[in-house]
């Protein structure tokens, strides 16, 4: 087997998270499930280096500690369950709003959304825009935390299509989801996280 796209060894935070080994191949979607408070979001934060944690993470065999954190996060993109915004209009959050606008219909969003003020966005619109923002930066790995929790069926299907295209093109996704049918539709493999411990593989 080729070297994994993303690999974590001994990733841990005392009392919160214990991940002996995790690997993700190019073109794979690993679904992670588990009860609320098990540490699913903490795992994604640790992978993207947003919280201090023990252990080492590799991207195509290159150690994270050998790279600057911003460079790492441009390749391993994390989209949290609740998106963050820092300007008052949508377009300012995109490096190329024109290019981003072309993608909006594919996510069932209005083409004018780039000019909207942030306040008029619904939770579901924010969720899709945050995902688009991450995708447009062309990362190699996507870490997604409940990316369709606020979406209706049509929008959810649109997002799932985009995710499938992303892995077909050689990307890798770790998807945290409560939705077992979504995991069944998309996942190549599934693992459970319980009380901060990542359990061994379960057949997808």
């Amino acid at each position: 087997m080729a070297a994994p796209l993303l690999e974590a060894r001994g990733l841990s935070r005392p009392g919160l998270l214990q991940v002996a080994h995790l690997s993700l191949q190019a073109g794979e979607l690993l679904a992670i499930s588990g009860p609320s408070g098990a540490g699913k979001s903490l795992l994604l934060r640790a992978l993207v280096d947003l919280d201090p944690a023990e252990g080492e993470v590799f991207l195509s065999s290159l150690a994270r500690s050998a790279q600057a954190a911003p460079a790492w996060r441009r390749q391993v993109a994390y989209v949290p369950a609740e998106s963050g915004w820092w300007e008052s209009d949508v377009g300012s959050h995109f490096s190329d709003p024109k290019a981003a606008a072309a993608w909006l219909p594919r996510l069932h969003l209005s083409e004018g959304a780039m000019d909207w003020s942030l306040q008029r966005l619904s939770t579901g619109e924010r969720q899709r825009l945050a995902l688009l923002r991450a995708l447009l930066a062309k990362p190699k790995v996507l870490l997604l935390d409940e990316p369709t929790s606020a979406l209706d069926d049509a929008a959810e299907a649109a997002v799932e299509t985009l995710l499938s295209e992303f892995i077909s093109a050689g990307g890798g996704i770790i998807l945290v989801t409560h939705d077992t049918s979504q995991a069944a539709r998309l996942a190549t493999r599934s693992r459970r996280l319980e009380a901060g411990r990542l359990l061994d593989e379960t057949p997808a």
Partner: protein
Amino acid sequence: MNPELGGQAVSLGWLDLAIASTLLLASAALALALQLGITRSFLIAAARMTIQLLLIGQILTWLFAQASLWLTLACGAVMLLVAGYEVTSRQERQLTSGWSFLLGTGTMTLSSTLVLFLALTTQIGADPWYDPRYAIPLFGMILGNAMTGIALGLNSLTARLESDARGIEAQLLLGATRWQALRPSLRHALRSGFMPIVNSMAATGLVALPGMMTGQILAGAAPTQAVKYQLLVMFLIASATSLGVVAAVLASAWRVTDHRDRLRLDRLRS
């Protein structure tokens, strides 16, 4: 008394002060009658002010007579520690392990002593440069203003970081460095820190005659001379405050982030 100013100063007797203080007691009585619930703290503050000022008058008289470098430095150090404590206690959310006190005091020391030393050795031309008659009152005025600015700037920074955390992390996740991601919060914190000194410069001479200048005029100085001193003091205050606010806010921003460009709100005391 400074011989150049002697002669025409209004000499205040204790009786004059006692009469003036009845006005303050009348205000306290009014507050009591209106049941504002602040009579007690009002009177305690007034008593504190009276005792503190009488004491400092004695201490300064003694200190000026000594004109000793070490005593002047020790006095400055005590003032810095008190100001550092004051900045720290005004923070709603402090940095952990004493970093708020350390950064607050450190940046005040840096900015205030630098500006003071420059003024004493060049514009004032005091001889010796540490002559406490010039050094201590100037230091007090510079420090008091730097302290207010720094306390406001730091408080605004920590408050902003909390409410902006999601937006800051969103920028970090898109590959921003910690300084890029903190820019909106930093801008806001710096603006809060600069606000009092900017307002005070704009209003000085129109709305308010500064206390220092008023004191000089009452003590017999010519208004134009008093104005020159006031301008010098304002320049010193404004530069020390700006330098102090920028240094304190940037140092705190450095402390609540780390070398892996993470936001470390765990370094704020809840």
